[in-house]
C-alpha cells in the first residue's frame, strides 16, 4: 500500500526530477539514459598510442611505424639506429595505407644492429618529398631538426599492435609460448589495465612517469583493450556541468536579470490587482443586493467556457489602439477580470456568517471600515490563494506576452526570453531545462510559503460549491 503511494509519488515528481537532472547535463546529452558517471573507460587508441613501439617476435625484431596523412599518395620512412655520433646507415621502407587514412609499416630489423638500449632515429618522407620528423612528437625532434629521436629502453618488448576493426581494440601478436610486456605511454598518475581477450584483467603499474608496463603470458594471438580508471571528478564532469546555468545567467545576449525582473513585476502586479478587483466584485455579489445580480453573475460564469484563444486578436487590437504595446500595463491589465477568481471570492465571502457584518454595522462601522476590518482579514486565505493562482498563470503566460512585446522590447519576460534556446531545427534542451528550473523556482518558493493559506482557501471556496 505505502509502496504504491511512494511509487505514484515518484511518478508524479518524475518530470521535475528529470528537469533538474537535465539542466545539469552536458550539451547534447539530454536524451541519454546513463546518469551514473562511469569511472572506467576504454581508451580510444589515439590517446595511448601503442603504435610506434618496436616489437619483437621470436628471433626477430620488428619496428612498427605509423603516420596519419589522408592526402598523401605515398609515405616513406627512413630510420637508423645507434648513437647520434655514430649512426648506422639509414634504411628506408614504404608505408602501407590502412583503411582509415593511416600509413603503417612493420619492418624487421637485424638484431645485431638494433639493440634495445639504444638511440633510434626515424623520419618520414611524404610523396617522395623532403624528409620530415614525426609531426606527432615534435618534442623528440633532434637538434638538427630533421630526425625524430627515440631512446628505447628496457630489455624485452613482447607487444606489437595493430588497430582493430572496431577502433578501441588492438590486436596483439606475441611470440609463441613466450611472455610479453605490455607497455603504454600515457598521462602520469592514471590507473590502467589491459583486458586480454577472455583473460583476466592485467593491471599496468606505472614504472616511471607516464610509462605503464606489465608482463603477461598469453600464447598466440589475442585482442586486448586498454581500460583506464579515472577519478570521480573527471567522470562526473564528463556528464554534468554548471554551464547551462552559467549560460543562462551570464550570457551577453540573454539578459536573465532583466527578464526575471519583468516577469516578477508582471506576475506580482497582475496578482495583486486581480485580488483587489475580485475581492471587491466578489464582495458585492456575495453580500450586496442589486438589480440583475444573478443574471450578471451567470453571464460572467458563462464567459469562462469560451476558449481563451478567441479573445486574443480583439484584445490585441484594443491594446494596439490604447498604445500599450511594449508596456507593463499591456501585459497586465487584459487579464485582470478573472471570473474564476471572482467566483472563488464570492463563494468564500458568502460563507462568512452574516452576524459578523451585522455586528460591525451596529458598532457604527462605515462601509469602508467594514470592508477593511471585516472582509479583508477574514478573506486572507482565499486572497492568498487567488494571488498564488494568478501569479503562477501570469508568470508562465507566454503567448500573450510574446504578442504584446515587439522583438526589441526591454520588457520581455522570462518564458519569452527562453525561447531563444529553441532552435529552428534543434532544441538546446539542457539550457531550456536550466531556464525552466529558474522559472519554477519562484513559484515553488511562493507555494511553499503560502501553502497553508492556499489549501485552506481553495477548499473553502470549492466545497461550498
Amino acid at each position, binding site marked *: 500500500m505505502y509502496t504504491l503511494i511512494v511509487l505514484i509519488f515518484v511518478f508524479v515528481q518524475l518530470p521535475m526530477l528529470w528537469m533538474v537532472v537535465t539542466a545539469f547535463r552536458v550539451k547534447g546529452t539530454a536524451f541519454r539514459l546513463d546518469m551514473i558517471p562511469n569511472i572506467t573507460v576504454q581508451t580510444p587508441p589515439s590517446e595511448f598510442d601503442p603504435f610506434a613501439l618496436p616489437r619483437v617476435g621470436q628471433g626477430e625484431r620488428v619496428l612498427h611505424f605509423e603516420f596519419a596523412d589522408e592526402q598523401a599518395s605515398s609515405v616513406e620512412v627512413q630510420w637508423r639506429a645507434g648513437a647520434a655520433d655514430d649512426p648506422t646507415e639509414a634504411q628506408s621502407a614504404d608505408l602501407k595505407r590502412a583503411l582509415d587514412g593511416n600509413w603503417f609499416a612493420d619492418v624487421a630489423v637485424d638484431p645485431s644492429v638494433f639493440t634495445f638500449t639504444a638511440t633510434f632515429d626515424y623520419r618520414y618522407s611524404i610523396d617522395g618529398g623532403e624528409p620530415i620528423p614525426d609531426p606527432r612528437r615534435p618534442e623528440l625532434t633532434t637538434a638538427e631538426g630533421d630526425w625524430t629521436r627515440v631512446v628505447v629502453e628496457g630489455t624485452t618488448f613482447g607487444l606489437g599492435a595493430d588497430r582493430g576493426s572496431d577502433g578501441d581494440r588492438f590486436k596483439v601478436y606475441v611470440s609463441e609460448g613466450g611472455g610479453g610486456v605490455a607497455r603504454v605511454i600515457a598521462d602520469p598518475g592514471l590507473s590502467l589495465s589491459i583486458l586480454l581477450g577472455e583473460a583476466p584483467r592485467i593491471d599496468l603499474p606505472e614504472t616511471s612517469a607516464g610509462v605503464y608496463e606489465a608482463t603477461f603470458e598469453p600464447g598466440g594471438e589475442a585482442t586486448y583493450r586498454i581500460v583506464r580508471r579515472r577519478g570521480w571528478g573527471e567522470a562526473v564532469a564528463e556528464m554534468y556541468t554548471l554551464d547551462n546555468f552559467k549560460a543562462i545567467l551570464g550570457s551577453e545576449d540573454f539578459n536573465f536579470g532583466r527578464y526575471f525582473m519583468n516577469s516578477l513585476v508582471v506576475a506580482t502586479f497582475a496578482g495583486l490587482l486581480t485580488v483587489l478587483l475580485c475581492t471587491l*466584485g466578489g464582495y458585492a455579489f456575495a453580500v450586496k443586493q*442589486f438589480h440583475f445580480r444573478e443574471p450578471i453573475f451567470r453571464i460572467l460564469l458563462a464567459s469562462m467556457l469560451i*476558449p481563451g*484563444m478567441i*479573445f486574443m486578436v480583439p484584445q490585441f487590437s484594443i491594446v494596439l489602439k490604447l498604445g500599450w504595446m511594449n508596456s507593463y500595463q499591456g501585459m497586465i491589465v487584459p487579464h485582470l*477580470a478573472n471570473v474564476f477568481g471572482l467566483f472563488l471570492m464570492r463563494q468564500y465571502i458568502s460563507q462568512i456568517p452574516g452576524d459578523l457584518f451585522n455586528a460591525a454595522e451596529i458598532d457604527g462601522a462605515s462601509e469602508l471600515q467594514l470592508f477593511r476590518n471585516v472582509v479583508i482579514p477574514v478573506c486572507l486565505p482565499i486572497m492568498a490563494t487567488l494571488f498564488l493562482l494568478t501569479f*503562477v498563470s501570469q508568470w508562465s503566460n507566454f503567448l500573450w506576452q510574446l504578442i504584446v512585446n515587439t522583438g526589441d522590447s526591454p520588457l520581455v519576460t522570462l518564458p519569452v526570453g527562453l525561447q531563444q534556446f529553441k532552435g529552428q531545427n534543434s532544441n538546446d534542451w539542457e539550457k531550456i531545462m536550466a531556464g*525552466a528550473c529558474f522559472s519554477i523556482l519562484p513559484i515553488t518558493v511562493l507555494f511553499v510559503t503560502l501553502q497553508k493559506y492556499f489549501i485552506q482557501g481553495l477548499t473553502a471556496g470549492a*466545497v461550498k460549491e
Partner: protein
Amino acid sequence: MAAKAKHSVGRITLRQDLAAGLYLIPFLIVFIIFIGYPVFHSFWISLHRVTIYSDFYDIFGSMEMVGLDNYRRITSDPIFWWSVVLTFAYAFMTIVGGMILSLALALALRKAKRGFGILRAGFFLPNVFDIFVVGVIWLMLYNPNGGLVSMMLSLGGATEAAQQGVLNNPWLTLPAIAFAMILKNAGFGMILFLVSLANINESIFEAAQVDGASPRQTLFRITLPQLRPIIIFLAITGTVGSLNAFGEIFAMTDATGGSSVQVAGETLQSARISAFHLFMRFNESAYGEAAAISFVLLGIALIISWINFKILGQSD
C-alpha cells in the same frame, strides 16, 4: 448553488445599486473592455471571412460579410467533429482517471501521519507548474530514443510501442497526454477530497461500522455521496479544462496535433482536440472560422455543463 445575500431583504433601492456598483465597477470595466467587447467582436468576426493578415496595425482591414457561412462550413467539416469527439474522449479520460487517482490518494493520505504532509504537498506541487514546461519534459520522457517511459515500456515487454515512441502511435497519443495531465493535476482533486473527507462527521462511519458495513459498502454508500459536491465541481472544471486544453497538446505534440490516422476515409490527427483545432485555424489566419468554432464550442460547453449538473444532481 446560488448564495443568498446575508442581510437586507425586500425591495432593492437605487442607493443599494449604487453601493454595489462602486465595488463592481473596477471589475466590470476591465471585463467589458477585455472580455465582453472581444466576445461580441469575435461574434461579429465569425460572420465574416477574414483571411488576409495584410497589415499588422489593421488586422481586420479586409473582412467580407458571409453571414452564417462559417458556421455552415464548421458543421459539415469532419475535422471539426473529429476534434469534438477527441475532446470528449480526452475529457472522459482525464476526468474519470483524475477523479479515481485523486480520490485514492485522498483516502490513502487522510490520516495525519508522519511524512504525509510532505507527500500531500509533493502531490500538489506539479499543479502550479507551467503546462508548457511540464509538457516538454513529458515529451522527453516519452521520447523513443532514451526517454524514460519508453525504456520502462521496453523492459515491460512492449518493445514495439517503445521503439515507435508512445506519442508517435496515433492510438496512444491522446491517452499518453491524458496520463501526464492526470498525474499533474491529481493533487488538486486530492486536496479538495481531503478537506471534504475531513468534514464528514466521524459518527457516520462509526455507525456504519457498528452496523457491519463492509469497507466497500462504506465507500459507495457513505463516502461517495458525501463527496458529491466535489465530484460535480471536478466534473465541471474538468469539462471546461478539456474544452480549453491547448497547452498540453501544443507542447507534447510539438505543435503538430499528433500523428495522422485514417478514420472513415479521412486523414485526421490523433490529438487535434477542439481547442487545438481552433488554434490551428487561428494560426492559418482563418479568424472568421476560428471565431465561429469558439461559439459552437461555447454552445456545447453550456449544454454539457447543464447535463453534468442535472445528472450529478443539484447540490447545496
